[in-house]
Each structure stands twice: as structure tokens, then as C-alpha cells.
């Protein structure tokens, strides 16, 4: 199947396996009593995705899910075992040389650069290997350093930078070549809250600034993906489990609208709420200062009847809000555990 002309990124049944190193043997006997592990490890398992130009696309998954492997293939650093991948309509295997001027990548926690050079010199070096003229490179470097708040460190050797400052420099490196398609692999890893927010703001602005710019982001931070991405793919053990807009994904896990009511203590008798027409379920939690009611509804207009019933029963409503599921809820629903890899059901 050929590439779709409109897609910025497309993968068809993309698979990547790695051979495991063989354990050493002595006279034909394995040293370890453990049973042998499979000869191959499947990092990506028939992944099919399509990212449109101008889209800010997120990949969410735990460590070892295959996110970085996918990015390495799309950035022409790794060959797929089977399947095909296209970036800007070009095949990552046979047309890698044509893809490279159009892309760039930033990985969280990377240690690239030369410690003997300062921030500006390092960024200049990486701009030059993309053929960016020196004067243009310096203009872009100034702009990017200002965005990440690193202007004062422009003349500091990178061996003297903190981890967060180094990460900011790496972030700048990805943008100074003005790529058409940018891959950000955990770009805010290790950054403080303020810097991470500034970077998220810039990323959003960068994609909208020029039509056709596309950004593929991987992140551990669910809120980051929720805030930034037009669409998100949830990936685990090399397989894409779901791919949709964050709001649509969240709707999938919430079968019934959920409302939370906070009541002043004193009144009682909320068990009957579950029997009201249109109400699916209700739960009550009493705290020293409030009574928390959670009501899930079969039909959303039933919230009026619920409020009426509470008031009639002498309840004093302090607050009422609709509870939206988070991407984390979606993730747990699909993967069966949180991003830390612990099975929620075992807790």
C-alpha cells in the first residue's frame, strides 16, 4: 500500500523486533537454571497510525511500550523488521536521505553536545549540519534561548549547565533547523513546572505558526498530552490500543455522566438517590466537614431531580460539579495499570 499524500506520518503494520543476546554456554550446558527467554523481543507489533499535517499528535505509554522505537524508525535511525513507515510521504527505509532535511528530534534526558563548547556554539554546530546559514542560525538561537529562558547562559559551557538547563538547550536544538515534522520524546522530562509550562505554550504556538508543521510527542505526563495534543495514541507492549482525540478517548471510559455534590454535614438519608429515575448509581462518603455524594446518571437531565431530592431532604449543597475522566483513567482502562506499570487490580 502506498503512502497517503496528505499524511505527515503514516505507518502500516510496522513491526520491530530485537534479537536477545544468547547466554554463554559451557560445554553445551546453560549456566543459568532459568528457562531460556524467547530469542526475539517484539518492540513494535503491527503498528498502523496516520498523523495529519498540522497535527499535534501524542504517543502515551509506559516504559518499554515501544514509543522510542517508533520514533527512531520514523527519524530514520532504526530499520523496521517488517511493515512500512512514511514521513512526509517518503519511505523511511528507501528515501531516508530525502526525509532528513525535513525532520528533527529532541529526546528528554539526552546528553548530546560538546562540553568544551558553550550553549550558543553547540546550537550553531547542530544548525550547520542541517545547512542553516550562520546568520540565520544565530537569529533562531537567540529566539529559542529567550523562549526557554536560557539567554543568560548562552556563553556558558554546557559542561557547566544543570540537567534542566541542558534539557532546555536540547529543546532549542530541535527547533533551530525549522523542521517540517518534529519528534519530541519526553521533552519536559526533568524540567521545573514553570519551564515545562513555557515549553508547552511554545510547542502549541509553533505548530500553529506555520501551516503544515507537524509534531509527534511522547510523554509520561498525561496532563501534558491532554493539554497539548489534537489526538493521542495509547501504546503498550508494542501495540496501539486506542487512537483518538483526548476528549473522545475520555468519553469511551465514562459510560455514565458522573456528578459530585459536596454537602454540609448534618442531613442524612441519601441512600434513596439511587432509586430516582435516570440515576444509575450513587455513593456517599462522609468527611469531618462535608458529605460527598457521587451520582452516576443514565440520563444527564436527571441531575435536576437529584438536586431537588437533596434539597427536599434538607441537604445544603456547597458545590456541584461534573466529574470528567482523565487520560489516566483511559490509560488504566485500556492497559490495566497506570504508567508506573503496577497492576491496579493488585492494589
Amino acid at each position, binding site marked *: 500500500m502506498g503512502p497517503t499524500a496528505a499524511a505527515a506520518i503514516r505507518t502500516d503494520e510496522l513491526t520491530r523486533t530485537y534479537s536477545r543476546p544468547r547466554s554463554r554456554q559451557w560445554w553445551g550446558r546453560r549456566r543459568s537454571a532459568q528457562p531460556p527467554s524467547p530469542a526475539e523481543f517484539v518492540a513494535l507489533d503491527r503498528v498502523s497510525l496516520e498523523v495529519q499535517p498540522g497535527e499535534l499528535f501524542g504517543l502515551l505509554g509506559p516504559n518499554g511500550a515501544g514509543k522510542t522505537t517508533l520514533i527512531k524508525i520514523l527519524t530514520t*535511525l532504526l530499520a523496521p523488521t517488517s511493515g512500512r513507515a512514511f514521513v512526509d510521504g517518503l519511505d523511511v527505509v528507501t528515501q531516508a536521505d530525502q526525509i*532528513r532535511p525535513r525532520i528533527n528530534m529532541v529526546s528528554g534526558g539526552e546528553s*548530546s553536545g560538546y562540553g*568544551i563548547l558553550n550553549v550558543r556554539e553547540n546550537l550553531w554546530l*547542530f544548525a*550547520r*549540519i542541517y*545547512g*542553516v*546559514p550562520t546568520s540565520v542560525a544565530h537569529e533562531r538561537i537567540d529566539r529559542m534561548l529567550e523562549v526557554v529562558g536560557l539567554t543568560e547562559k548562552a556563553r556558558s559551557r554546557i559542561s557547566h549547565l544543570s540537567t534542566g538547563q541542558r534539557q532546555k538547550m536540547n529543546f532549542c536544538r530541535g527547533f533551530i533547523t525549522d523542521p517540517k515534522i518534529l519528534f519530541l520524546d519526553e521533552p519536559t522530562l526533568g524540567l521545573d513546572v514553570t519551564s515545562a509550562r513555557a515549553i508547552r505554550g511554545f510547542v502549541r504556538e509553533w505548530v500553529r505558526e506555520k501551516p503544515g508543521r507537524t509534531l509527534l510527542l511522547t510523554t509520561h505526563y498525561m496532563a501534558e498530552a491532554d493539554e497539548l495534543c489534537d489526538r493521542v495514541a495509547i501504546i503498550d507492549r508494542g501495540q496501539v490500543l486506542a487512537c483518538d482525540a483526548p476528549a473522545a478517548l475520555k468519553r469511551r471510559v465514562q459510560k455514565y455522566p458522573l456528578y459530585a455534590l459536596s454537602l454540609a454535614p448534618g442531613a442524612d438519608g441519601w441512600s434513596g438517590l439511587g432509586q430516582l429515575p435516570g440515576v444509575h448509581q450513587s455513593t456517599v462518603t462522609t468527611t469531618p466537614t462535608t458529605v460527598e455524594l457521587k451520582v452516576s446518571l443514565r440520563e444527564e437531565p436527571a441531575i435536576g431531580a437529584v438536586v431537588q431530592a437533596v434539597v427536599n431532604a434538607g441537604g445544603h449543597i456547597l458545590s456541584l460539579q461534573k466529574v470528567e475522566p482523565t487520560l489516566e483513567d483511559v490509560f488504566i482502562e485500556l492497559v490495566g495499570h497506570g504508567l508506573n506499570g503496577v497492576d491496579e487490580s493488585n492494589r
Partner: protein
Amino acid sequence: MTPPSSLGLFLAAAVARTYPRLAWLFRSRSWLVQETVLPVLAVATFAYAYRSMNAPAAYTGFVVLGAAMTTFWLNVLWGMAAQLYWERDSGNLEHYVMSPAPLMGVLTGMALGGMTTTLVRATAITVTGVVLFDVPLNPTSWWALLGVFLLTLAALYGLGMMFASLFLLWGREAWHLVNLLQEPIYLLSGTNFPVAIFPRAVALVASVIPLTLGMDAMRQVLFRAEGLLPVGVEVLGLAGLAAVFLVAARLCLRYLENRAKREGRLTVRWQ
């Protein structure tokens, strides 16, 4: 912005990658002691040994030239051959591979940077050695000397560029190989003595090492000494070695990139 031509990208990458080496030369002072004073001490050992034996004065010159050229050889081994391996470990290699710049441009930059910085060290060793030990310089032609020197560098760094690819492929094994080869190569290349004293067959085998032919030719030109082969033949040999090594480096690099992409070795092995 007009996209740069292939040659433009090659040159931009070469200049950019030369820059960190030059910066190191000016910003790091430790090399002054480690790589100038210490080699001069080694030269002194052989110089006094030759004097005590009443050897021709040119022999002291052989040692000084040997010490100067050895700095290039060490740079080729440790600075050049190990460079891609180091670039991978530091996370730079993936950016070079992912960029539109040809890897040969990056390697050329490494070689140019290495040559330039080592030239400064070699010059310091030569000048100190010549002044301290009163080495008689009597070249047939300074231009011939310069030509042979540049050709030797081309062959040496061509070999370094080829090694750079192989080292990346072999990983840690390559380091053991370098350690294993270091002393035999000092011996076979005639660092501290004229290689013509070897049996002819051994000397010819040793000529595969660019350092052997280069030093022998330079000694013939600079001290009008007897050599292994006529200078013209050695120049042709050096040119041949340079061409072979550069072509081999290019082929190795292409092979390495494809294999590393298949095996996932361009970044971290298990990534």
C-alpha cells in the same frame, strides 16, 4: 531559504565538526604538559642513547621526527578511530545520522580538527627537540617535505576514518585491538630508528602502515638519509594508501550505518 547543495552540506558539516577540536586546543591547557613535555622526555632518552653510541647526528633527528609523527598516529587511534564510538555514547551520533549532512563530512571535520590540533603539538615537539638536541636539518626541498607530510596525513587520517567505522561496529573489542597493536606499530613503523634496518620483507609488510612510509620518506628528504624505497615510490605508495583508506572509509560507513540501523546499534543497543 534555498536548500544547501550536497557539497555545501559536506563543507558545513566538516567545518562545524572541526570547531570543537579547535576550541579544545585553546580552552584546554593540559595538553601542553601531557603531550609536549612528556614526548620530549622520551626523545631525550633515545637522543642520549644515540649520542653515547656516537651514532650519526641525523639519528637524533629521526627520533624527533618520530616523536612528532607519533602524536599524529596516537591522534588517529585515540582521537579519530574511537571518535564515532564516543559520539554514539555521548548521544551526538544519532543527530549526525539523522541530519542531512553526509557522515563523511562529519568524519572529515573530525580529521581536520585532529590534524590541526595535533599539528600544533607536533610542531612544539619538533621545535623543542631540534633546539635542545641541535638536530642538523638539511632538506633536499622544503616543498617536497611539505608534500610528503601532507600525503602522510591524508593516508593516516584516511586510515583513522576507516577505523572509526570499524570501531563503532566492534565496540569494546576495538579498544583491546588498539592496545594490542600500539607497541608493534611503534616497532614496525620505525618510530625511533630507520626502518631500512629491518629485513626487506618485514619492512615492505610494515609499509602498509602509512606512518612507516611517511616517516621514511620524510627522513630521506629532511636528512638526506638512506631509505627503504626511493622517495618517489614511497610517495606513490602513500597516495595509494590514502585513496584506498578514504574509499574504504566511505564504504565502511555506509555498511555500518545500514547494519547499525538493522541491529539497533546507532543509539543504544537495546533501544
